[in-house]
């Protein structure tokens, strides 16, 4: 399974995106704002997910703005920084 697909499945389950399927999310879609419409609590949940599943600790929550741009951007960041 590609990391992109893995992330889509995790995000849908973790953030309870009940009406959204993996195929509804394009790798370049914006995760916040007009894209998936995620909110600030979702951002915190993603930060915890990075730590728990990939061993990446974001010490500055503001970094999330760039990292969580899209599935592609997030996957590239994880590939570079993951410790597990």
């Amino acid at each position, binding site marked *: 399974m590609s990391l992109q697909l893995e992330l889509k499945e995790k995000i849908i389950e973790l*953030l*309870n*995106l*009940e*009406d959204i399927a993996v195929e509804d999310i394009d790798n370049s879609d914006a995760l916040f704002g007009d894209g998936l*419409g995620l909110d600030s*609590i*979702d951002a*915190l*949940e993603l930060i*915890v997910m990075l*730590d*728990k599943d990939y061993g990446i600790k974001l010490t500055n929550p503001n970094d999330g703005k760039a990292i969580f741009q899209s599935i592609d951007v997030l996957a590239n960041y994880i590939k570079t920084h993951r410790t597990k």
Partner: protein
Amino acid sequence: MEVTPFYIESYVSIKESSITFNGKNVFCTETKDLQLFLKEAYKARISNYPKFHKMDGLSQLALLASECILKPESHSSINKNTALIFANHASSLETDRKHQSSISDKNNYYPSPSVFVYTLPNICLGEISIKNQLHTENCFLVMPNFSAKDFLIQTNYLLKSGKAEKVLCGWVNLDANNYEAFLYLVSNTGAIKHNETEILELYTK
């Protein structure tokens, strides 16, 4: 007993996998599982509010009941000067337990922010207010049992003082798979007198 010029416009009750509005059954399922019931009831009664799926059980229960009473028909509009007075016995215990389980293991300490934000019972009032764009008075009381007298006193104060034109009162309790919601809308119009006896009778129906 205090006599007031206020009335109960309508009431809704959710328990045992069914919803009754003004005494008439408007939704029921076979399932005994709360989460399944809430999902099915959401599809039948709300359906266009994905944020519902992110809420904890208490907020889902409160929002579902409030939608049934505030918008009994799809074209219904609500009075924006509607205050909220809610209460229960279990506070946010169900979500508190979930949060506790996520922080009890020091070697696997990953508290969920989306769970933590619901570790207060009054969050459900915020959810109702956001959904209906209410900027009104609200309070959430935690008490041993349903108290018609406490609801009556708080509601009459808000209406008599002009702080609200209507008051949505609600008892929403959730503990494990035991749940109940009883909401009623009070204003200066309606068929049922707003007094302790009538409130208790509707609650125990």
